């Protein structure tokens, strides 16, 4: 950087300032949530504008109430189960599917690919999906959150594109050495597309972590609810804007506000911890998937 022109250096400085500002803008909401979650709820409700420091005395009541909610821990447990089991299904099925579609010698490859891609744009709709789950006997079971979305078509396409980038000669060489498809896939292909694998793990993981809708319609007992649905239910109850009937909310708005922010922190911490470690794969992997169509 030392031998760059003066103009370039000014540009760099301005660039950093601009990016820092953007970063602050992006960070502020998160900071706000953390500060709000330990502020005095009364003053918080009264407060408007920027929030720079916790209001009045720091209180941990919000966290106490969230953690004493009997569904938060079972929610965590369920989410982790779905995440762990779901990821295994996701990755195995996506890799196998993508590998098959990436084989040039596959019979009817084009039509098969089109059929697969078709599902990305058109779905049966909510009610048929519901009826399907119902007749498969998955109602009120965590399987309903794992199996129906086991393959996300767009991720499959990303995976397939990643396989495309591996030169044919490698798999041909392996074949000459007597490797079968499983060996080629596991020993040759997968090590070469690790970055994409990491990205897909992230994609699938985040989608499991954030999912609530499926759970809200397929599950009947709240002991099986994943964390996000538990949180959502607690949050929604703070909105008592039901015009139809003046139905009372469970908590006063001050308390609700506190719980709300504490909940957001509680639910985001795990993802916040994992993201930085996967991030280095992220940039690389997404690029690989995106460039080759």
């Amino acid at each position, binding site marked *: 950087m030392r031998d760059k022109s003066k103009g370039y250096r000014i540009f760099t400085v301005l660039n950093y300032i601009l990016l820092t500002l953007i970063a602050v803008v992006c960070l502020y*909401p998160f900071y706000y949530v953390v500060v709000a979650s330990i502020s005095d709820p009364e003053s918080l409700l009264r407060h408007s504008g920027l929030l720079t420091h916790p209001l009045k005395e720091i209180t941990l009541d919000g966290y106490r109430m969230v953690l004493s909610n009997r569904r938060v821990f079972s929610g965590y447990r369920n989410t982790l189960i779905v995440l762990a089991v779901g990821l295994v299904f996701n990755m195995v099925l996506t890799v196998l599917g993508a590998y098959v579609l990436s084989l040039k010698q596959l019979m009817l490859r084009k039509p098969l690919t089109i059929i697969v891609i078709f599902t990305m744009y058109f779905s049966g709709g909510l*009610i048929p999906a519901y009826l399907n789950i119902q007749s498969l006997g998955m109602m009120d079971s965590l399987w309903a959150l794992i199996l129906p979305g086991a393959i996300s078509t767009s991720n499959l396409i990303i995976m397939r594109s990643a396989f495309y980038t591996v030169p044919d000669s490698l798999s041909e060489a392996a074949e000459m050495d007597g490797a079968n498809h499983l060996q080629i896939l596991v020993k040759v292909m997968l090590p070469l597309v690790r970055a994409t694998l990491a990205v897909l793990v992230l994609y699938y993981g985040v989608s499991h972590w*954030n999912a609530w809708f499926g759970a809200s319609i397929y*599950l009947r007992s709240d002991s099986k609810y994943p964390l996000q649905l538990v949180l959502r239910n607690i949050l929604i109850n703070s909105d008592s804007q039901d015009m*139809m009937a003046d139905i*009372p909310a469970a*908590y006063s708005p001050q308390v609700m506000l506190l719980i709300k922010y504490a909940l957001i922190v509680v639910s985001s911490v795990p993802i916040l911890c994992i993201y930085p470690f996967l991030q*280095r794969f992220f940039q690389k992997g997404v690029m690989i998937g995106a460039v080759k169509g």
Partner: protein
Amino acid sequence: MKRQTTKWIALLTVCTMLTGLLTGCGTVEPDKTDTNAEQSSEQNTASEGAKSNAEEPNAEAESQTPEETTGIVYPLEGAGTLTWGMQRNANWSERHDSWADTHFVQELQKNTGITITMEHVDNADGMKLLLAGGKYPDLITFNLNVYYSGKEPKAIADNIVYGMEPEFLQENAPDYWAYLEENPSIKKAITTPEGLITCFAMVRGDEILKSSYTMFIRDDWCEQLELPIPETADEYYETLKAFKEELNVEIPLCVTANALINLLDYGILTSPFGIASRGAYVEDGKVKLGYAQEGYKDVLAWLNKLYEEKLLDPNFTTIEQNIVDSNILTGVSGVSSGSIGSKMGVLLKTNAEQDFSLAAVPSLVANKGDTAMFAHYDNGLPGTNTYITTDCKDPAAAAHFLNYGYTQEGHMLYNFGTEGLSYEMVDGIPTYTDLIMKNEEGLSVSQAMSEYELAWWGGPFVQDRNYILQYYEWEAQREALDTITKTDVAKYKLPNTLISEENQDEYANISSEINTYRAEMELKFIRGEESLDNFDQYLENLKNMNIDRLIEIEQEALDEFNSR
């Protein structure tokens, strides 16, 4: 150095994404609430006869109900089990897996002899899918008039709900039947064109239970300025102006766009201009649409004036409800709107220790002493009705069970819970005990209510006026009730009509196009982006979008309703 920068960028990326996730969570629900509110404001229940109803308090009618005349004796003998589908509600779901575990349902089972198994869904979508799924619990409690296209009669035609013949009810639910006989307007509203009774209705047992949305004002400021609570549009304008000029109130009238629409839909701001409501209403037997009247121009012009003079919040289209709340609490604003219980009550409670008081503003009128045409009003049937489904093996037993809510004993249990525990009789009035009002285990009033009774929500019973009088803890809330219930709304309110099946598609098409256009234009007129000189053009455009046909369809539905 360079490595570190990369790390920083990494961290920033993470946070950016997280922010995306967080905002994602936040935005989902408000939209949904909006649609619900929209739906509910369009939903009309019950009938024109509600007015005659008003003259004889229902509470009295109930006590006259002949008790168990045809001999349904509770607890029922040899009664079996019933499954009951219902949405989960956070008021009890934080303590129990199933509603059946609450003290109330335990008592209900003991008193009726029926064993109840609950089937809970998480939200309205879940219930809609349950209905689409083809396997139903024996009973469901749900608002089909809002959430099922074609409303209750369609649910009967689709073979979901068991349509009840009058003879069936006479025989199996005599107390309910007697109540319907005494209240023909209620009966009419839940009878299909074919003469079947659709449901065991949740009924508002008193006029004061039917209205709950109001505009409110800082009456301590009015006192300070020696102004009365405004009654006419002019007084209202002067009061806002005085707030601004003499008390330096930054935003005298602070409401969200939705709340402003509510104020128009509930006619709180439209009466002075000769229009009952922004939406559909009935005048002399004819359906009228407020937003398509000539006089609506004056309403918009008046709002435009408030907007131009910065009496109405300049950001009302984008502002969020929690900012509105905080504006009211901190004295940035002096007038807003909301439900008497969940909004006004909450604001009063939050600022209980401050110099702060609120009073309801009545629906505005043109001249002092006039009676306003309209207000928030739900015709006595909020819609959370209970249905026997076609999958119920023994509809007669189900009817025996549901009939309980309309007996004297059931009425007390559903509204107040268990005597000596959740309520005591004080001077002949059932009064909630401290178990409900000041719970020692730290339950809020609504949480405690959900443990012992059902009046806070809805079910197969008649809601009692003494519930609301106690739920409204503040004197100001009870006065507000008094204020907003003195209008002619029962005369103008469109009853729970049913658009005939062949018209439904056409109706939906025309109204969705018009609603989009109208919503856009209203805001433009109010904010002065479109000159009111173009109002005639707006009416012309509505005509071209076939608004006459829309009114015609609604008129047909009204005529059909009146001929039942």
